[in-house]
């Protein structure tokens, strides 16, 4: 392939008049519903996940739309307070358990990790498929709950509200989350085993792409943290069913025990959600600056540091709940420590741009959006980790804004970045560049209009989970809803043009981004077994010089063939 002469893009496509999608690939290998439903191929399972989480994302998104519509007016105008409570509860549960937690690991992670390490599949393909089925069962239970009246405890299932004071479908919802949790555990387990045991020859730990490191760190959290949520949900279900439990103060139990057990998972959960996204950003920033990630070792270790420290900070969600002042101090200190590795990453990515050769394709635009918005979200996390200011800001819209900045402005943007980046590899097709760049900008603008006013609302004292509010908060709420409508457009556009590209997009070829990484050495879409021969890794990660030599060698070979 000849190096591109167009200056402002690195996209290198094969000659469209002659290029074709390879006939034999993982999508065409076998046909029929059963070949998909009983597959062991990590790429097919990733595709199944992609379709499922997109489905749940739009349900969660519709619920978000309902929330913002209701909050246009100070009174409850669109729905009763009970309904509103159900809407925000289901929005949280679906978005967290059925979208954010599986998003990058189950789709991009499943698809890419074996290829990135030079393996033919994950270590345990059947467990992988089981993982997807558990996810679907959990998801179907969630949909059933929604259809049959919903649940209104908040996604945090706070006892004793959830055990004794609501009459909605708490047990079914807890069961849905429980089952989906095991899906997460098995995915993480699979990743850890694969990364430890199935790296190709020459693939040492420090030659791994940083995407693999991030998913590895997230997998540690999935594997060690999720079971604690599982047992906590079991205890809630038992307490609700039998009226007796360890969380009921009238019987000698302690509702604060629930808080500790719940947040022991749910704090690491946020790192489960963000770390894989950070892995995507490493890959994207590197490729579109044509440079090795600055401070590879620091970024790799910071991922593991976030995972380890992430287990020690859970009670920063409980600063006002009557824990002892000294306990609050310790958790606040540890929270400061866990904030530092994220800062390290942001600076390392920024310095990857230094003396690079930067282009602004869609994945890079989303990555820039991530870096800015995650910085804001992460810094506001420090506001909340500081005990004194947390008192004023906690349980208000400041918290809502904080976590939406890191999860939506951060994680979701990273997910979209990754989807655009690896779309050519996954489908063999390129998406249309102009409209996708437009969608990225629309998303960024819409996001800021939606969630920045919520910081101010929080500072003003507006509590979260309020169906009605004092009238002086209305203007900012209207502003936020207006932004949400723009944001919605930004999310709908990719669905449309990505689907369009499946039939009409340009043929991508093996490596349209001229990226390093073993996955780009295979055809697009890849073969079921990824590689016909196990590769040998004889160069460092992000080795653009090696890539140049590769390309030169290929050009040379083609010339020789042509000249015969």
């Amino acid at each position, binding site marked *: 392939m000849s190096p591109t002469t167009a200056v402002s893009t690195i996209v290198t496509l094969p000659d469209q008049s002659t290029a074709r999608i*390879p006939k034999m690939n993982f999508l065409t290998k076998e046909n029929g519903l059963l070949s998909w439903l009983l597959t062991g191929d990590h790429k097919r399972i990733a595709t199944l996940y992609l379709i499922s989480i997109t489905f749940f994302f739009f349900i969660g998104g519709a619920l978000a739309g309902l929330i913002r519509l209701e909050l246009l007016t100070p009174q409850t105008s669109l729905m009763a307070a009970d309904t509103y409570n159900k809407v925000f509860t289901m929005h949280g549960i679906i978005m967290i358990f059925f979208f954010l937690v599986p998003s990058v690991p189950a789709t991009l992670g499943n698809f890419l990790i*074996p290829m990135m390490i030079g*393996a*033919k*599949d*994950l*270590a*345990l*393909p059947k*467990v992988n498929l089981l993982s997807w089925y558990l996810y679907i069962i959990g998801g179907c239970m969630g949909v059933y709950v929604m259809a049959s009246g919903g649940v209104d405890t908040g996604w945090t299932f706070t006892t004793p509200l959830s055990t004794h004071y609501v009459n909605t479908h708490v047990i079914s919802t807890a069961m849905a989350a429980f089952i989906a949790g095991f899906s997460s*555990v098995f995915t993480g*387990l699979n990743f*850890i*085993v694969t990364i*430890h*045991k*199935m790296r*190709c*020859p020459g693939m040492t730990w420090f030659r791994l792409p940083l995407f693999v490191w991030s998913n590895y760190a997230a997998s540690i959290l999935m*594997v*060690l*943290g*999720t*079971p*604690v949520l*599982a*047992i*906590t949900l*079991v*205890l809630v279900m*038992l307490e609700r069913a*039998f*009226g*007796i*439990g*360890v969380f009921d103060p009238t*019987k*000698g*139990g*302690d509702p604060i*025990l629930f808080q500790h*057990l719940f947040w022991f998972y749910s704090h690491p959960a946020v790192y489960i959600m963000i770390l894989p996204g950070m892995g995507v950003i490493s890959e994207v920033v590197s490729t579109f600056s044509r440079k090795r990630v600055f401070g590879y070792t620091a970024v790799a270790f910071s991922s593991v540091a976030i995972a380890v420290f992430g287990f020690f900070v859970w009670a920063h969600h409980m600063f006002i709940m009557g824990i002892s002042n000294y306990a609050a101090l310790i958790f606040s200190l540890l929270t400061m420590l866990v904030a530092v590795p994220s800062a390290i990453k942001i600076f390392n990515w920024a310095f990857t741009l230094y003396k690079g050769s930067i282009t602004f394709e869609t994945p890079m635009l989303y990555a820039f959006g991530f870096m800015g918005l995650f910085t804001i979200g992460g810094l506001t996390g420090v506001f909340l980790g500081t005990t004194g200011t947390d008192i004023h800001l906690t349980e208000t819209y400041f918290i809502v804004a904080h976590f939406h900045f890191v999860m939506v402005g951060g994680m979701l943007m990273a997910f979209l970045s990754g989807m655009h980046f690896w779309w050519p590899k996954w489908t063999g097709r390129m998406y249309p560049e102009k409209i996708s760049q437009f969608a990225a900008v629309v998303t960024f603008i819409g996001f800021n209009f939606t969630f920045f006013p919520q910081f101010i609302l929080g500072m003003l004292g507006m509590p979260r989970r309020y169906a009605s509010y004092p009238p002086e908060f209305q203007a900012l709420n209207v502003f936020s809803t207006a932004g949400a409508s723009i944001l919605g457009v930004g999310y709908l556009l990719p669905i449309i043009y990505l689907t369009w590209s499946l039939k009409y997009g340009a043929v991508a070829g*093996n490596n349209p981004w001229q990226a390093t990484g073993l996955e780009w*050495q*295979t*055809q697009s879409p890849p*073969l*079921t*077994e990824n*590689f*016909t*021969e*196990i*590769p*040998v*890794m*004889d160069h460092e990660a992000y080795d653009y010089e090696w890539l140049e030599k*590769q390309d030169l*060698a*290929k050009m040379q070979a083609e010339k020789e063939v042509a000249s015969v």
Partner: protein
Amino acid sequence: MSDSTAIANGGQALSNSANTANSAHGEHPPYQRHHFASVEQQADTTNFAMWLFLLTEIMFFGGLFTSYLIMRNWYYQAFVDASHQLSIFWGTGNTVVLIASSFTMAMSVWSAEMKRRKSLLIYLCLTLVFGLTFLGIKGIEWHEKWEKHHIPGAHYSVQSFLNPQSDPEVYKEYQDKPLPPDAAQKTEEYFFLYFAMTGMHALHMVIGIGILVFMIFRAKAGAYTTGHVTFVENFGLYWHFVDIIWIYLFALLYLISRH
């Protein structure tokens, strides 16, 4: 070289032609999955996976143990008196049964490694019998709890703790003093944890027994005595783990302040 190739610098496949998609089915045992380069890699990988899974199980039970430790610290006397309601006889019996089953399970693994099909079958069946015995004894104990109204919930009764002499068997052995009513009420927490912990453990036993039955049929067909022992080995790990959990449960639930 065409599109889907290894690295241009002549990367060597890890094993000869065994794993190329296009070649005829190569020289690897039929139980080796195609994404593994060798039987050793497969065995090593699945073994590691099982250990990691057991780690998640430790975290799972950890929530229960944490709740137990906190409640026991707060309501020690109630927990002591409530634990006197458990039968040391049956508890020890169950412990012996499970340890025996771990022994027979270890022998099963040995039999598989030694490629002795009959021996494997015998030991697997013995393990199954012991497992079922354990569940049977558990059933007896739980039934007894039901009869004495010690199952937490609507029918729970604190009578045995308010007035220990109304329960002659237990009183003869321990001569507990009557508990004040608010302390007696906390025994319900003990039993909640008792049923949650032993129930969760029993659930793991049931799953294990299900897999054991499956294994017995497969063992009969000779699946584990041709060199492919990883399934039996990994299941053995799981079984031993369930046994160890029981030993902790026995110590914590049955043996509070025994002299």
